[in-house]
């Protein structure tokens, strides 16, 4: 009984759970409007990340490569940065933000990004005196941290570079949601509307679920503007909802412009959502309306139908982003499930001290394991042991074959989810997200009972 925290002993990785830093940097960067990131590295560092985004969202995103080759490896990639910046500026007249995202190759070569940005700024000023294009240095060597760190780094650097001075109070709330889906953002936006709060998302990814329009216009891009970022310095506060992806940016605004930083756990489940709504009310002075009390009640009502009848004591394995994994583990506890195996996929030592993990450890009166720096082999090996019982897996699509081969039902959650339709549209945070996710878990269990003829007759009456 109790929770054991271990670290993968092997040096290598067999089937990775996490991607590298530049991928996270790119995900953050596409959340801005009139922005095309330039990834300084080999072409594959862009092409496959764009493919990953396309797989998850079924959308195309504009990201450029500096097409680094052998000559740059020998003589440095300076010219490639200059050419990339100027070509983008010349061909995209609306371009206003241009993050320059480094990779392992450009970091090993040691190209001076800040120095080259100074040179490019001069070139831009000369050729386009009427345009202001923000060049943002984003240092994301792939051999450090993971996609999580890359997201945090890009967000922080964008705020640092573009929010240069304290603006007059805007009355708005900065929201740093971290790595979520458009469906989650819509859920957050729904609360802000309900409470009459004017919020600015950094970054606003609502149009990552974008329409086909009669006039064939393309809307697939982030919506956070230069002005949104500049005005973040005059906000009433920053609501940071992802410890590992967005706390650093909120801290920066607090230290530099005295924008109060409100750092909360991502609102997975009922209790975490309660904390967030109370906090929003506290920051803005706006009351929580009756409509949200009813919505919360509906959610608890729906979850009650499932918990002790179907969910109780089910042992769950969860992998993916740390904020997601810890948040879902707490949600499982709310549902009377046992988070039995958590897999966190990079080498950061901070996760072991995460307060959510410490709280669950305190509570765990069941067998539970947390594997740090994990890969999918850690999951697969455990599932192959006959006495290692896991009833359901929660995680992203890269783990699909582990679940398929072990014949364990799996609910797709997190990034990337490419083997189930439209998941980016469905919230998993907030009250409605809690219901959507719990019902999806229940229905997956029910289908599994039917396919495996495992007490499927229970559902004859419900």
């Amino acid at each position, binding site marked *: 009984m109790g929770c054991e925290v271990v670290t993968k002993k092997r040096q290598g990785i067999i089937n990775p759970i996490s*991607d590298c830093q530049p991928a996270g940097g790119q995900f953050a960067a596409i959340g801005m409007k009139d922005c095309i990131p330039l990834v300084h590295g080999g072409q*594959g*560092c862009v092409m496959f990340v764009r493919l990953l985004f396309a*797989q998850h*969202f079924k959308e195309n995103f504009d990201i450029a490569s500096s097409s680094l080759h052998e000559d740059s490896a020998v003589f440095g990639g300076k010219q490639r940065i200059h050419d990339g910046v100027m070509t983008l500026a010349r061909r995209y007249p609306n371009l206003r933000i241009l993050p320059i995202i480094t990779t392992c190759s450009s970091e090993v070569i040691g190209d001076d990004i800040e120095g080259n940005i100074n040179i490019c700024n001069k070139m831009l000023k000369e050729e386009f005196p009427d345009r202001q294009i923000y060049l943002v240095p984003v240092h994301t060597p792939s051999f450090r941290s993971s996609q999580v760190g890359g997201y945090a780094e890009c967000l922080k650097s964008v705020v640092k570079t573009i929010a240069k001075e304290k603006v007059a109070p805007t009355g708005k709330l900065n929201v740093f949601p971290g790595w979520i889906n458009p469906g989650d953002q819509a859920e957050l936006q729904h609360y802000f509307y309900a409470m009459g709060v004017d919020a600015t998302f950094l970054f606003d990814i609502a149009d990552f679920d974008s329409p086909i329009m009669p006039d064939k216009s393309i809307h*697939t891009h982030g919506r956070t503007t230069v002005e949104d970022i500049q005005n973040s310095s005059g906000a009433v506060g920053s609501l940071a909802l992802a410890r590992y992806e967005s706390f650093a940016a909120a801290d920066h605004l607090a230290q530099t412009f005295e924008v109060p930083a409100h750092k909360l756990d991502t609102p997975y489940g009922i209790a975490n959502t309660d904390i967030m709504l109370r906090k929003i009310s506290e920051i803005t002075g706006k009351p929580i309306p009756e409509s949200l009390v009813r919505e919360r009640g509906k959610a608890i009502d729906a979850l009650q139908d499932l918990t002790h009848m179907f969910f109780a004591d089910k042992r769950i394995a969860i992998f993916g982003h740390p904020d997601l994994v810890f948040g879902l583990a707490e949600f499982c506890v709310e549902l009377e499930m046992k988070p039995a195996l958590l897999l966190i996929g990079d080498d950061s030592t901070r996760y072991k001290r995460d307060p959510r993990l410490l709280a669950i450890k305190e509570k765990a009166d069941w067998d539970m394991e947390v594997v740090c720096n994990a890969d999918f082999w850690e999951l697969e090996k455990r599932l192959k042991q006959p006495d290692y019982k896991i009833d359901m897996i929660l995680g992203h699509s890269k783990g699909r074959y582990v679940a398929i*081969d072990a014949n364990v039902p799996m609910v797709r959650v997190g990034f990337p989810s490419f083997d189930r339709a439209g998941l980016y549209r469905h919230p998993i945070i907030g009250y409605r997200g809690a219901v959507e996710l719990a019902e999806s878990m229940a229905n997956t269990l029910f289908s599994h009972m039917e396919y495996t003829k495992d007490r499927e007759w229970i559902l004859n009456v419900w």
Partner: protein
Amino acid sequence: MPLVLLDCDKVIPEREKHVYLKVDGEDTRDYLPLANVATIPGTLSERGCSFCGAKLVIGGVLKDTIQMIHGPIGCAYNTWHTKRYPSDGDNFQLKYVMSTDMKESNIVFGGDKRLYASIIEAFDEMPHIKRMIVYTTCPTALIGDDIKAVVKKVMAERPDVDIFTVECPGFAGVSQSKGHHVLNIGWVNDKVGQVEPKITSKYTMNFIGDYNIQGDTYLLQKYWDRLGIQVIAHFTGNATYDDCRSMHRAQVSVVNCARSAGYIANELMKRYGIPRLDIDSWGFNYMAEGIRKVCTFFGIEKKGEELIAEETAKWKPKLDWYKERLRGKKMAIWTGGPRLWHWTKSVEDDLGIEVVAMSSKFGHQEDFEKIIARGRSGTYYLDDANELEFFEILEKVKPDVIFTGPRVGDLVKKLHIPYINGHGYHNGPYMGFEGFVNLARDFYNATSNPLLKLAATDIREPEPKEKLEAAE
């Protein structure tokens, strides 16, 4: 007509050399787009890197081989779950990818020890697997890790395992094409000739440049079985590592994808005297021609004609049903390179489809010679086209369908143009007789989708007299 400078390329005029509009009376002596040269940074090209050319396209197809990628995690993560090449080896090649997960201290102090440990761990964790390919990546090439020395050490310690090394970091060369080349030559240098195959037929061949996309290899294998031809090695669809070590024993190398694997066929010819026979495997006319060539080589023409007659009788009526409905439809092909010349004339001859624009990511000028020779007049031929060029060309040629990858496919969806996965297919296989009916079906289903009409409707405008219905 000379080469074309598109409006979006006014500020990068060197792109003119890569865009060609063919008119009647011209041939490739007059104009040939520049190809296989470095991309202009910041153009939003669709090219990948040479590492992926080696790992994703060729090496990663082998069904019994650990893919060990020596570098930070992204190179393994991002190239995993991107291909549709199944195998009869429980899809080991789709399920597993390994990485040395290089961290900063390894970059500073060297990653040789970490690579050694990762290789040993991988074999220990998967004792039934005895074959491996180790790839370098950008940072491990830059810091100069000696992967060959590490592999030599492991192979000396473990005589039952065999490991191939590919030293092809992503920054090498201008596109994935470089990776194809490096892997081909490396393989024939290091591995071919090491295993003696069991010969079971008078007629033996290698089938080169087919990667079993959605079962292409399975489908063609049925033909070779019926003809009594033993395929010593598929390079590399549904193949084992050791199959490909025994390629020197085939009587002929039949080549489908000349771009990614023509190199090894040439080397087999040079070193072992194995003749090279190029065929096209997509399309009725081409497949029949290919089977005739192979059968003529072995002197089994009659058998070949029987097979062609049988397959034609079975599939031609289905193909013709689609041909009636697809005649005159316009198609664009935006894929790697060879499929442009494989497809442009086969869809025209077999289905009456007009290919109006083609873009190649990594083809060489040699490919463009074939593409333009086989392609139509009035068609645009682009090398390494980028996003703005795509938009401009689409406006000019207005295709009904684009055969391309998911990224471009998701982009053109907004322009009301359906895409068919030209790399991994929608519902393949597409090779062979049966496969081309699949391609025709997917084309037909894409163009007859009622949503295309609904997408163009603006509901703020007056209601049309007739209801827009799914069934027309």
